[in-house]
């Protein structure tokens, strides 16, 4: 579904990604882990169209999307839940969600998805008319993920959903991602919580210094000596 080949990306003269190659198959739940500054977010931003790649190829369903503007990538069925969330803080939860379905022109389908999203996150239904900016951190994360689902995406890119959340909320968020995968959505998850990520993903890539250092099924990576030493602290 998603195939990245030798992707280079940079901010100005500062090159972040050096020849990243990865692929995500349909229905898969893939993790992208690594330390701070390894280029995880940059990879997602490149896929989402927020950062034009310097070199290399990004293919989504066989079509090249490298350098395509973000709004077009979004309309093709890629949904990016950014680290900063980018919610519309002066709008209600409901308005945020309806904007998530901006590219869905069918009103009936919008409302169906809205009901479905509310069933996944009952909390959001309770807060339907509250302004997004007045919600707690955990609720905002939920809202951002829910908004990302509203366009019925085929591929969701989720960036550090656990960042700044209390531990029990992290479990909630991860569970909702698992539920999401069960509905048939393909997910590429960027995380620093290596343990939790390897526990729920099918496969994972380890990014270090802008390069793919390791890849494989999550269950195998969990047993890997390097991973154990560097990330799991055992």
């Amino acid at each position, binding site marked *: 579904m998603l195939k990245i080949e030798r992707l280079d990306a940079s901010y100005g003269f500062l090159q972040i990604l050096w020849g990243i190659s990865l692929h995500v198959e349909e229905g898969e739940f893939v993790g992208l882990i690594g330390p701070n500054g390894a280029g995880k977010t940059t990879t997602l931003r490149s896929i*989402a*169209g*927020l950062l034009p790649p310097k070199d290399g190829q990004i293919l989504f369903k066989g079509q090249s999307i490298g350098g395509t*503007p*973000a*709004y077009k990538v*979004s*309309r093709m069925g890629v*949904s*990016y839940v*950014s680290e*900063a*969330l*980018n*919610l*519309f*803080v*002066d*709008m209600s939860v409901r*308005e945020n969600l*309806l*904007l*998530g379905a*901006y*590219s869905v022109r069918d009103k009936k389908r919008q409302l169906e998805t809205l009901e479905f999203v509310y069933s996944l996150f009952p909390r959001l239904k309770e807060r339907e008319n509250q302004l997004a900016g007045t919600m707690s951190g955990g609720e905002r994360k939920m809202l951002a993920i829910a*908004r*990302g689902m*509203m*366009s019925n995406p085929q591929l969701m890119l989720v960036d550090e959903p656990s960042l700044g959340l209390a531990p029990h909320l992290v479990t909630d968020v991860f569970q909702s991602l698992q539920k999401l995968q069960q509905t048939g959505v393909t997910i590429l998850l960027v995380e620093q919580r290596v343990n939790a990520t390897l526990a729920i993903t099918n496969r994972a890539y380890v990014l270090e210094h802008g390069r793919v250092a390791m890849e494989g099924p999550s269950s195998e990576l969990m047993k890997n000596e390097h991973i154990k030493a560097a990330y799991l602290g055992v």
Partner: protein
Amino acid sequence: MKESTSFTRFIMNKLTRNLPATVVIALSLVLMVVLGAVGGMSQVLNTFVTGGMWALLAVGLALVFGVMNVPHFAHGESFMIGAYVAYWVFNPIYQTLGEHPNAFLEVVAPFIGFLAAAVVGFVVGVLLERIIFAPLRRRTKSGWVMNAFLLTVGVSFVLTNGFTLAIGPNFRGIPRYWNIDTLTILGANVSADRIVAFFLAMITIFALWLFLRQTRTGRAIRAVSQDETGAELVGINLDFVYVLTFGLATATAALAGASLLFMFQAYPTVGGKPLYFAWYVVMLAGLGNVAGAILGGFIVALLQTATQQFFGPSWEDVIPVAVMILVLIAVPSGIFGSEVKGVQEQ
């Protein structure tokens, strides 16, 4: 009426949460009553007609600033273009009416002028956005607010001087749109032109409000004003929103210029005064705050009329600006203060 209640609820929310706004509004009401008692009903009506006009202009400014982060100083030229278009469309019709009287056309002719002004305004807005701001946006985003500001000032110079060069500095005006006797409202005389200008402003603002609140495209415009990246990520084409916003703002200013042709004759620098008053409103109300701009329009108009009544017309600029300075010292973000993304440079 679901829409109007949401509007009142919005205003009430602002009032209860916002002390400076409540104080200013309460003082304005007192001033209004005093003005009515001393100057008579005609001054109160004056306030409403002028206020409607400032509000219409200020809403455009607020929209452009909120969505595009452009401090628009060529807004007065949109007003000027509207005045010219209305004159060029209305006057020929008016001349032929002298030879072939037609009661229906007599009533409708001014509206044809208004419509033409709004359409031309929209087209001019779209072209300006594409020719002026789009290239700047592609080039660099650093120093955007300052660069955009300078560009609008430049556009203003080019347009006023271009018009002077092309058609000369002559005044082109009309005595009145509708040849109807003045109406008497509570002892005050008002011309039909003024009443129409007021209601046209109110209806346009209300329509714009409904559009922004209730439609998919309107929601997209508000989304861009709150979070550009978020808007892109949900599939909103930013360029489309910018073009539409600038077109709408220019169209509303042109409409204001057209509907006030009987007061402000068309000449190249006619936009100066409306521009400055619209800016007083926007600064007083808070940059980028569309709802606040509406109330702000009436408050500035009230200050203006009260100044004329109590100090004489030559103080018309001094007192409102002095009040504005005092308010901004107390509440730097304006009385309906909203945090706008562009105030602190991105």
